[in-house]
């Protein structure tokens, strides 16, 4: 479980995260949604130690993460922008990440992912010769291949073709059933409604909603997640949100 308490972060005068308090449970897919620039990526980067918070505490399974790098052995991360060293091949990048995690050889799980996402013909190609979609799939395999306990995926399905997007969703459902903690940043609410369990909706660095998706839709009497969130945003604007 990931626990975040009183987390604050500003870039200059701009407050990006404003007193964030959340708990992300294991065995569930938690979606992180919100408008552009709302602080979603900064929040996951704080969990990964890429952004240093001004104040607050982040702990994973009860252990504080500050000034520690070993906890990241348990995290698989797929960034929003996939940019790799242009002179290395896909195979070398996969080897490098395993090397940094002291993993040798190819596990059956990794082989399965490469087969699933049809990456075998691209493994010896240099990264700058691959299409955006293929780079996206390599990035996804990098996050998944070490079978980590926590998955943090930023706009993971954005560049995938429909067949790969389906495989991606199936893989995530399987990971959830295995008890992994999954944080998924996405703008596509219909997609989140389809397979995420919880939603954390952020606006201007503040959490507007942190709830189960089904219970949120039911509580608002809405037909879908999009309408439920629109209802909440409207109420917030009027100052009537409870």
């Amino acid at each position: 479980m990931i626990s975040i308490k009183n987390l604050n972060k500003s870039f200059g005068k701009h407050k990006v995260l404003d007193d964030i308090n959340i708990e992300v449970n294991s065995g569930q897919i938690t979606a992180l949604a919100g408008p552009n620039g709302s602080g979603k990526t900064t929040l996951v980067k704080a969990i990964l130690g890429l952004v240093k918070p001004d104040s607050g505490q982040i702990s994973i399974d009860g252990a504080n993460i500050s000034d520690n790098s070993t906890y990241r052995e348990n995290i698989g991360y797929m960034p929003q922008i996939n940019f790799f060293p242009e002179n290395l091949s896909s195979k070398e990048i996969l080897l490098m990440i395993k090397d940094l995690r002291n993993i040798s050889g190819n596990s059956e799980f990794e082989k399965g992912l490469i087969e699933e996402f049809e990456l075998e013909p691209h493994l010896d190609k240099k990264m700058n010769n691959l299409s955006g979609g293929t780079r996206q799939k390599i990035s996804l395999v990098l996050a998944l291949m070490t079978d980590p306990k926590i998955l943090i995926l930023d706009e993971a399905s954005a560049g995938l073709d429909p067949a790969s997007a389906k495989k991606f969703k199936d893989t995530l459902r399987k990971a959830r059933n295995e008890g992994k903690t999954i944080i998924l940043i996405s703008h596509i609410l219909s997609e989140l409604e389809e397979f995420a369990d919880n939603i954390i909706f952020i606006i201007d660095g503040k959490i507007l909603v942190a709830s189960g998706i089904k219970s949120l839709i039911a509580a608002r009497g809405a037909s879908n997640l999009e309408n439920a969130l629109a209802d909440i945003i409207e109420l917030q604007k009027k100052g009537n949100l409870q």
Partner: protein
Amino acid sequence: MNLFIKILKYELNNIMRSKWVIAYFMFFLVITEVLFRFSGDSSRVLVGLMNIALLLIPLVSIIFGTIHFYNSREFMELLLAQPVKRNVLFSASWLGLVLPLSLAYVMGLALPFLLHGTSDFAPYLILLSSGVILSFIFVGLAFIIALKITEKSFGVGLAFIVWLFFGVIYDGLIMLIIWQFSDYPLEAFMIGISSLNPIDLCRITIMLKFDIAALMGYTGAIFEKFFGSLFGIGIAFSMLMAWILIPYLIAKRLFNKKDF
């Protein structure tokens, strides 16, 4: 194998295959060979190379270093999301860039010299080590610029201005001071001010080994007396080491604090 060596290995694999580094090696190889064929005298080749290397190495190191850092930012993010300490990633990235640049320069000069031979062994070694030292210094400055300035085009522009300052403007300012205060004894001041610019420091050290300081008159004699002494050599070496270490430490500190 520890993490530093692992990251360094992949950095070297990536940068050694860069077409820019290969072009940099080819440039020094061709220019050295051409200078040998035209002059036939290794002393003249060394003086010619000195003038090219002392301007080109800082320029390539700072511009290539800045661009490389900006282009690596997203991948650095991915590497920092692994169980890797920031200190380790920074040092491996810095060395992983300096070593291929230094190797390209050293090999570019070494192959023609091995072919043609040289009697000026000491100045040749000083020219090689000066180039390596300047690569270390200017890659460190490049990393500071890329870490401080978020916008790539502005950062690359600033890197060019920093090179222009150390490579051209600084000497212009010294000339202006000499001209303005020609009635005063400026020798001690000249030694001090030249020591603050790593390019000048390398140039003086090389020139003194060529015995061409005599052509510089009284100032040359003063320089030779100072930088030719063990104390002077010690000062020059310490200043160059400080020029490597200080930018490296500043950049490492910035990297450790950076929000990616």
